[in-house]
């Protein structure tokens, strides 16, 4: 039987073709045609023009080689990265960017986790925000202009592929792109980083800040978040907390400050000189100077500025808060090299004697 086939290349080739087509067809066709396979999520919207351009920067630089965008439904991943990824979140992703290797962390829920300035600093010098990081620096993203000449064509192409941009949106896209870029550039300059709005890094930050945030618009999600926020009360009730001066307590405070758990150093630097966050060694303090006030501020964070409760969102006991606050105060006037300049809008000076 097979001997017969071995003498007939045409039949042999056709039979091979049939053999290889079966599996692919059975797996692909239902995935593409049966709607329940990819449940849509109403909150998931197409990318803005700037985000789309930022996504193309992400693609061009090969970020996908080291960063996944697919959180698996494991406790360890949900704890580390956030809610697991849903099929409906990727319906406008041409191409998909799930990745297959995590040399760096997953980025699917990176949006909104850090302030814009953190991303800018991190891309300029990854070791500044993450000492020991093996991610390369991307200085050229700060120098190269974003080529947005194709944005109209890109919007039109995406619409052809089924992404629901309104008819004629390509005329509006360039203006929207510039407006969003200006907002990000303004955020950066507020943090003391001067980056023109037309650079590639601006688009990339726009894309990163969008990632995984769509389903946070869900009413259900918002309710959950609100419940969570009420749980993390504004840090109060520390009145009367004493400044600790024992070496042991200060060492414990320093360990928490530099820990991988609370990540204070990633924004304020190991020597407290400040980078994304302010310098903590001068006496310009906006939100109060007493041990109790500093403890409260660490506990509640400054969400609008990108500081999560307890710095990283990982809770600390009252004693630990007291130790960190005391450590910060002990470092007053330590004059680290090249500190971040104080914000001129800071009016309140903390006098040494209040400590």
């Amino acid at each position, binding site marked *: 039987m097979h001997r017969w086939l071995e003498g007939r290349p045409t039949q042999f080739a056709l039979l091979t073709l049939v053999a290889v087509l079966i599996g692919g067809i059975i797996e692909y066709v239902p995935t593409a045609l049966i709607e329940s396979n990819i449940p849509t999520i109403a909150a998931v919207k197409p990318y803005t023009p700037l985000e789309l351009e930022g996504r193309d920067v992400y693609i061009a630089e090969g970020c996908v080689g080291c960063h996944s965008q697919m959180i698996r439904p494991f406790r*360890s991943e949900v704890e580390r990265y956030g809610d697991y990824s849903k099929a409906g979140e990727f319906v406008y992703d041409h191409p*998909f960017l799930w990745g297959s290797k995590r040399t760096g962390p997953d980025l699917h829920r990176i949006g909104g986790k850090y302030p814009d300035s953190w991303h800018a600093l991190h891309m300029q010098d990854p070791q500044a925000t993450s000492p020991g*990081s093996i991610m390369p620096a991307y200085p050229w993203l700060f120098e190269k202009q974003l080529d947005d000449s194709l944005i109209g064509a890109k919007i039109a192409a995406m619409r052809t592929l089924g992404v629901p941009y309104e008819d004629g949106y390509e005329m509006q896209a360039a203006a929207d792109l510039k407006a969003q870029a200006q907002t990000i550039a303004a955020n950066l300059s507020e943090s003391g980083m001067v980056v023109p709005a037309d650079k590639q890094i601006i688009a990339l930050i726009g894309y990163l800040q969008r990632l995984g945030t769509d389903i946070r618009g869900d009413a259900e999600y918002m309710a959950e978040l609100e419940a969570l926020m009420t749980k993390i009360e504004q840090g109060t009730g520390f009145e009367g907390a004493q400044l600790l001066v024992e070496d042991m307590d200060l060492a414990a405070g320093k360990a928490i400050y530099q820990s991988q758990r609370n990540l204070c150093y990633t924004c304020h630097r190991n020597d407290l000189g400040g980078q994304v966050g302010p310098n903590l060694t001068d006496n310009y303090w906006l939100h109060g100077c007493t041990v109790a006030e500093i403890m409260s501020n660490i506990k509640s964070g400054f969400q609008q500025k990108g500081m999560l409760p307890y710095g990283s969102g990982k809770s600390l006991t009252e004693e630990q808060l007291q130790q960190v606050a005391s450590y910060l105060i002990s470092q007053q006037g330590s004059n680290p090299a090249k500190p971040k300049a104080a914000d001129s809008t800071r009016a309140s000076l903390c006098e040494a004697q209040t400590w």
Partner: protein
Amino acid sequence: MTNDVPSTSVSMQPPEVFHYDNRTVRDFGVATIVWGIVGFLVGLIVALKLVYPDFLGFVPELSYGRLRPLHTNAVIFAFAGNAIFFGIYYSLPRLCKTPMWNQALSKVHFWGWQAIIVAAALTLTQGITTSKEYAELEWPIDIAIALVWVVFGANMLGTIYTRRVRHMYVAIWFYLATFITVAVLHIVNSFELPVSLFKSYSLYAGVQDALVQWWYGHNAVAFFLTTPFLGIMYYLIPKAANRPVFSYRLSIIHFWALVFLYIWAGPHHLLYTALPDWAQSLGVVFSVMLIAPSWGGMINGLLTLRGAWDTVRKSPVLKFLVVGVTAYGMSTFEGPMMALKNVNALTHYTDYTIGHVHMGALAWNGGLSFAMLYYIIPRIYRTGLYSVKLANVHFWAATLGIMFYVLSMYFGGITQSLMWKEFTADGLLRYPNFLETVTQIMPMYALRSVGGGLYLTGALLAVINLWATARQGSLLASEEVRTRRCRRSACTERPTCTAGWKADRRSSPC
């Protein structure tokens, strides 16, 4: 060479005279080794960049993100790709007893493929990419690949249709499956909408794009890195060991099982993702079933050497073949294991996978490619290998390099994965900062570079050895053959190529 001329004289008809084109074979051989060195070197550079992030400075064209796809493309399509064509252009005419069908097509094929590789290197370093793994090249290059692939297929089919041997030897089945399936995979996965000359968007979105991509990606491994090399194995092992293939029946069963089952396994790259569960389960089941046909190939290759193991000690060609086929067996056992959901939960996203693919690429594809180079180059240059000793040094450098590479990646991958998953007694992540899990395995990244460096050193020795071999011989560009055309009725009388032992005529590549 003398094996190719029938040794018995059953013929009543006058012999026909024709010529094998060894120049094209030589050209593909040179391209194999040159692009191999490039691919290994870029691999070593990206490995070093993970140890020293500022290595070579922060230049966009030399950044990790752009060089990584260049490395994978160079190794798969430039090194292994040229090696496939090198093997096919040498073995197919000899198996069909006819020259390659069209010499002009051979030239177009050779230069077209090299032009595609150069275009890939130029565009990938510029950040021009679709981002789909092993399918990064933008749409104009995709079209060029499809065209050159069809040229290759036409040339191959033409050769097969004009053969002087009635039955297609098992190697040819694998070559045919390679041509057909890679064409389907490449075309379907490359459907994209161009925005400009250098930018396009995939036709598929999200989950569907992922499914199509890994249907392609996994079967690129199957039909670009496996089936053509199995075909070459079926030619080369019997030739180099002077033994017939162990089992003809096994070759039929494992061929059809392999081509049918492989296609289904793609979703095992997407376990625990947003891909529908039923598709994930299909991927797992078919991956596990794949052990059988894969091991059928390995067993048929290794058992062909039964009674000839003493020759393995003396022949670098056989050494590379044996380690290559053994590594193929190990990888194809490891792959199905990694496709089990509970194992995949541990290995996915980690360097374990990197170790797995390098076992396949360095030992199986690399091993068979170097075996071919050491076997074919001396033959078409009508001389012996310049230095068997040097080839042995190459073999041990490569083997040691693979060990360093693979073991360090296994160790690092599992270590990191366990750290990602570890909780404290309080229910908090033990290592909440991802970075800690990276710095922990830095020594493994360093060891991996050592392994890669050793492998590259070995390949450079091969360059010297093959260069000297070519220098001491002279290329037989057009090899004259005299044979008798096999008529349908007379086919069973086809002479066996070797005498002296009971050759199974159906399974000998003569």
